[in-house]
């Protein structure tokens, strides 16, 4: 499976994470029970609190955004890239099968 690209847009008050309609269609086709979201907004303060007490936010964003909960299903993705929409730079990479639950 090709890398899944998650768009990250830095706004005045936080981050917007989104996936393109073609990725949403692809997810629905591969996982018919999935409910991919258009976008998820996380305020800067929420992100920093989350990362102090729980861990890296991105690891929790992609299952919610892709609407795929099952770990076995998530492991089918090779790589998930978080890409800055304005610069095109890859900000973060996640390989679900390498992540600890």
């Amino acid at each position, binding site marked *: 499976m090709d890398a899944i690209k998650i*768009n990250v*847009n830095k*706004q005045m008050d936080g981050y*917007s994470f*989104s996936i*393109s*309609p*073609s990725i949403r269609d692809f997810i629905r086709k591969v996982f018919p029970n999935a409910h991919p979201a*258009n*976008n998820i*907004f996380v305020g800067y303060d929420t992100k920093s609190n989350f990362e102090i007490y729980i861990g890296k936010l991105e690891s929790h964003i992609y299952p919610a955004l892709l609407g795929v909960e099952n770990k076995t299903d998530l492991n089918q993705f090779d790589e998930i890239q978080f890409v800055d*929409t*304005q610069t095109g730079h890859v900000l973060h990479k996640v390989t679900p099968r390498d992540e600890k639950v």
Partner: protein
Amino acid sequence: MSEFLMLGWNVAIPEVDIGDDIFVVQDDNGTLRRVQVKTSTSTARKDSFSGQFSVSVKNLRNISNILVHYIFLVRHNDEWSRPVIIRQDYLLNHFENNKVGSEAKGNITFYFSFTKGKAECSGQDFTGYIKDYTDFPKIEH
């Protein structure tokens, strides 16, 4: 704007222009839609007409929690064409994955051609976006 009012949504024009042309609001719960209207004169052909629109790449890539709806209208034979309504993420997807539009100097130029009720842009069928008010369902007051 009158189309949105007819659908039961309220409309507002931003006091300061930072990209959005209209705010379309569902009064009773505050649901907000951002709308950018693009207009063009027409170029007439034998059985069709076309219009050319410019969209800022920066604005198109600026995906926030409230997506922009782009509305494309062509003035042809002293009448407005039926609106082509595309949400920002779909337009960006067409641009990035389907080679729709051509980019130059920070702007994307989209050429829409209208033939017998059908709309096309860079070889892609956009007919499904004509009068696509999916995200503006009729509100009964």
